[in-house]
């Protein structure tokens, strides 16, 4: 919501459904994520990364969901120093009780040991507020709430 004050200045405010607290002393903004597929649920922690185009997870998490990793949508993902291959699969990604049907990517290489929440599949599905100094992440599903 935006409104103009008497002195002409604009102010903006947002409302959120959920507050997720994280350890601000942690190396990244790390939050718990559920990966759900066919009745199997995997609970992993993942780093929020607005610089990542996709949500990418470690290969073994995909295997543990029963996925055949290489049968998914092949995607080369660029990094600062090169690239790696990941495969996209449809599943449900859940954060703080919000479920999203997404394409999540699983790294081809087992040595890639990062779980990342990027734009497509997470950031573009939610409304986010961040006070990193206090380790607070405010969250709503995009298109809902705003009371």
């Amino acid at each position, binding site marked *: 919501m935006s409104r103009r004050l008497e002195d002409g200045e604009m102010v903006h405010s947002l409302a959120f459904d959920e507050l997720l607290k*994280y350890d601000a002393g942690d190396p990244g903004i790390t939050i*718990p994520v559920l990966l759900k597929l066919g009745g199997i649920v995997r*609970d992993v922690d993942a780093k929020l*990364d607005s610089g990542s185009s996709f949500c990418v997870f470690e290969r*073994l998490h995909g*295997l*543990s969901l029963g996925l055949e990793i290489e049968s998914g949508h092949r995607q080369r993902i*660029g990094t*600062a120093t090169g690239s790696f291959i990941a495969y996209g699969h449809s599943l449900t990604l859940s954060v703080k009780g919000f479920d999203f049907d997404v394409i999540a990517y699983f790294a081809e290489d*087992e040595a890639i040991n990062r779980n990342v929440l990027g734009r497509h599949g997470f950031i573009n599905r939610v409304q986010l507020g961040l006070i990193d100094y206090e380790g607070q992440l405010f969250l709503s599903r995009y298109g809902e709430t705003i009371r």
Partner: protein
Amino acid sequence: MVNSRLQEVKQQLATLSFEEKLTLTAFLVEQLKLDREERIATAKSENGHSAETHGQAAQEEPDPSRRREYEWLKEHRDKYAGQYVALSGDQLMAQASSLRELYKLVNETGAYRPLFVRIEAKDEPPFGGW
């Protein structure tokens, strides 16, 4: 007779690759859930109440915020730096140097939906994004 057939199946399964075992595990978990639902439904229809009242308490859903797990991590991060850990509440269910090994240990312990975490090593450079 049944036991010898089970032994035979077990011996055959032991020869599967890690990936095949994971796929099989997922299949069996799904089957167990279906069996459990059927048992509960049967118990309800026969006794008028759930099988869970007969000592089969439903496993508690983890707190979506994983508050206790992250408190544990804050306290023990240094001790387990560079390790993978599986946490249920403030309990360490398993630790390993690789995710592959951790999954193996978690499957052995039968822990219900632990949180899988890789704790960064002390000398590891900070993650700069992809």
